[in-house]
């Protein structure tokens, strides 16, 4: 057992930390207020140049080939400063990875390098629909064969990065007669394809700088070469990729939690009430101790899941455990941090309220906490059967 990062991983973490501190942290509050959208996008370009958009992607496709652990630590560092940036990076990596995993050689060569280089500021993962959230197999967007082409109809909701994505990975029903989940396929739809429209933007509790939109397909015609992976095998692909994405969201949650507890700890050392620093009160010390402990356990669960994925071993259960634990621990850490700030924590003069709003999403997207528990229980029970 060696729990240290290797040299490359340490370097990536240091680079991410430096970038986050210099470029993201100073503007994260402005991003949250909906300001400086251009700078937000510019930063995505810079992160691509630094190699953060394809961390676990092969060099021949423009990736950094740094592995899953590096991906996890990089995301944590970015999320410490700006979770909207971090989620964009996480989804971009997930899109690159799914194309690398199931795309044809031609699809890999035409899309992955564009995302890795920043030519496309983002890729989008378009699975969720109004009637298909936790239950994605219930999706109803359809793709119908027309000669060599496919014609897509339907709509997707809650799609991260939709307005600035260069390509959408879209799941649609290709066999309506197949049993649930067995007739779904995956397509690559380029932004700007006629009939592919970015719809309404969601107004959200947090992660304001990351766009979340509806995506509509109205007689959207794509060539036969847009089909990715085997016909009717799309649901299995989605489930597999989400497991990897969970390492990303868990790492992101960890970053927000660490940022919150650090800010609160510094504040507690400075803030005086009753003639002492509030850090002298056990009530405050306990919060910091609990948060630090839970976040450290979360980090280890994430490292374990990332390590297993990197080794090519099964990691779905471990990724669900890590996501569940890290995001719930991060939620607790953020609320306790806000509490340590007292009334000031409730104002926008300090970042605690933003962290609390941002972190709330992490137990919802890429599988709610309830769904993680279902997956974990299923895997654990299976091992006893």
């Amino acid at each position, binding site marked *: 057992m060696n729990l240290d990062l290797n040299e490359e991983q340490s370097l990536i973490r240091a680079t991410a930390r430096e970038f986050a501190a210099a470029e993201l942290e100073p503007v994260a509050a402005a991003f949250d207020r909906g300001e400086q959208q251009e700078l937000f996008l510019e930063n995505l370009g810079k992160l691509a140049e630094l190699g953060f958009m394809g961390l676990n992607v092969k060099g021949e496709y423009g990736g950094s080939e740094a592995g899953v652990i590096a991906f996890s630590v990089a995301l944590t560092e970015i999320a410490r400063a700006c979770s909207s940036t971090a989620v964009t990076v996480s989804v971009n990596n997930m899109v690159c990875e799914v194309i690398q995993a199931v795309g044809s050689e031609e699809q890999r060569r035409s899309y992955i390098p564009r995302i890795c280089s920043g030519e496309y500021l983002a890729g989008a993962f378009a699975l*969720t629909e109004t*009637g*298909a*959230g*936790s*239950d994605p197999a*219930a999706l109803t967007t359809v793709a119908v064969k027309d000669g060599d082409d496919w014609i897509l109809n339907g709509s997707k*909701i*809650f799609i991260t990065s939709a307005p600035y994505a260069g390509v959408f990975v879209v799941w649609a029903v290709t066999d309506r007669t197949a049993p649930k989940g067995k007739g779904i396929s995956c397509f690559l739809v380029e932004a700007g394809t006629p009939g592919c429209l970015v719809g309404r933007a*969601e*107004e*959200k*509790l*947090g992660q304001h700088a990351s766009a979340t939109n509806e995506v509509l397909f109205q007689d959207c015609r794509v060539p036969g070469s847009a089909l990715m992976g085997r016909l009717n095998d799309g649901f299995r692909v989605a489930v597999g990729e989400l497991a990897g994405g969970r390492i990303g969201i868990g790492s992101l949650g960890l970053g927000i939690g660490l940022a919150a507890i650090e800010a609160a700890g510094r504040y507690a050392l400075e803030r*005086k*009430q*009753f*003639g002492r620093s509030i850090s002298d*009160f056990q*009530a*405050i010390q306990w919060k910091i101790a609990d948060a630090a402990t839970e976040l450290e356990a979360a980090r280890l669960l994430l490292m374990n899941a990332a390590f297993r994925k990197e080794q090519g071993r099964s990691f779905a259960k471990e990724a669900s455990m890590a996501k569940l634990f890290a995001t719930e621990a991060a*939620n607790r850490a953020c*609320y306790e941090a*806000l*509490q340590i700030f*007292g*009334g000031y*924590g*409730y*104002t*926008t*003069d300090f970042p605690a*309220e933003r962290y*609390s*709003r941002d972190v*709330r*999403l992490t*137990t*919802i*997207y890429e599988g*709610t*906490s*309830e769904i993680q*528990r*279902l997956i974990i229980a299923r895997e654990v029970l299976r091992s006893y059967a």
Partner: protein
Amino acid sequence: MYFQLTEEQKLIRETVRSFAENEVAPSAAERDENECFDRELMFDKVAELGLAGIVFPEEYGGAGADYISYAIAVEELSRVCASTGVTLSAHLSLGANPVWLFGTEAQKQEFLKPMAEGSKLGAFALTETGAGSDAGGTRTFAEREGDEWVVTGSKIFTTNGGDAETYIVFARTDKDAQKHHGISAFIIDKDTPGFTFGKKEKKMGIRSSPTRELVFENCRIPADRLLGKAGEGFKVAMKTLDGGRIGIAAQALGIAQGAYEAALNYARERKQFEQPIAGFQAVQFLLADMALRIEASRLLVYQSAWRASAGLSYGKESAMAKLSASETAMWVTTKAVQVHGGYGYTRDFPVERMMRDAKITEIYEGTSEVQRLVIGTAITRG
């Protein structure tokens, strides 16, 4: 033990609920978005229902009802809009009640009556930058000059600040006294020369309730505006906050109730995996825990309200009620967002607002840590 509301209390619940649902709820999201305090709706109309001074005797402009009725009123308003709930709570418990408790007859006629009738809005200014949980850190000073007091200093985080007409302000009148000694309470009118308003806070939640800084620069007030005895201000503040906690506990209870109902309705309608999500144990257990925690908190709140009306001590009980109800509100609203899934994170549903609103109930009128201190001291003193 008799756990039933009286006919009068039930009637108050019905009346306030119908007002809250028909008039307050429709604009709650928009007022939150625009950080807008709509005085006519959030106070004048509330006063028309007789709520502005509901617990005070009729001769002082009140409705002569008990504290349970008051708690019900704040609860019902907060169930749809926590900002409207706190406007009433800060006005009645913090603005009007200290005058009722400590005011002279003349002060009651001049200040309590218009507040209780609802022609004037009240506010309470204790907190300063260096004096939050520790009111003993007060650095606003009042010096006696002839028949006047001259007030200098500033207060932060004053609810209803800028919009209220009547302010209960705490200042140090004895420069040499330490900590909580030598502080006095004053009643100050909005348009007094030397009294201005500073920054309006930008907040996570209760965004349609204004929170402002108050600034006093050589602000001269007549000697008869001293509330209670000179040097007794800390006692005035603590007694006032004992009662205020009932209001905030009721506010938290209302927020929790609103979020619980929203989650319950959503869970029954939302289908995933071919069935309403309310059919999944994971969701049912959340709803069950919500209902349980809310009911336990409600009993604590009504118990402390009952004790207040019965003339029994209620400092410990109101601290317990506030602690339990506010932590319940935070937990319930957070889980209500969870039951709504991704939709809960958007502004199309009210639960994200409720979650932002709930957080303040663990902070103001004594943080959760301070409530634990109050309870812990009371029970270990024996």
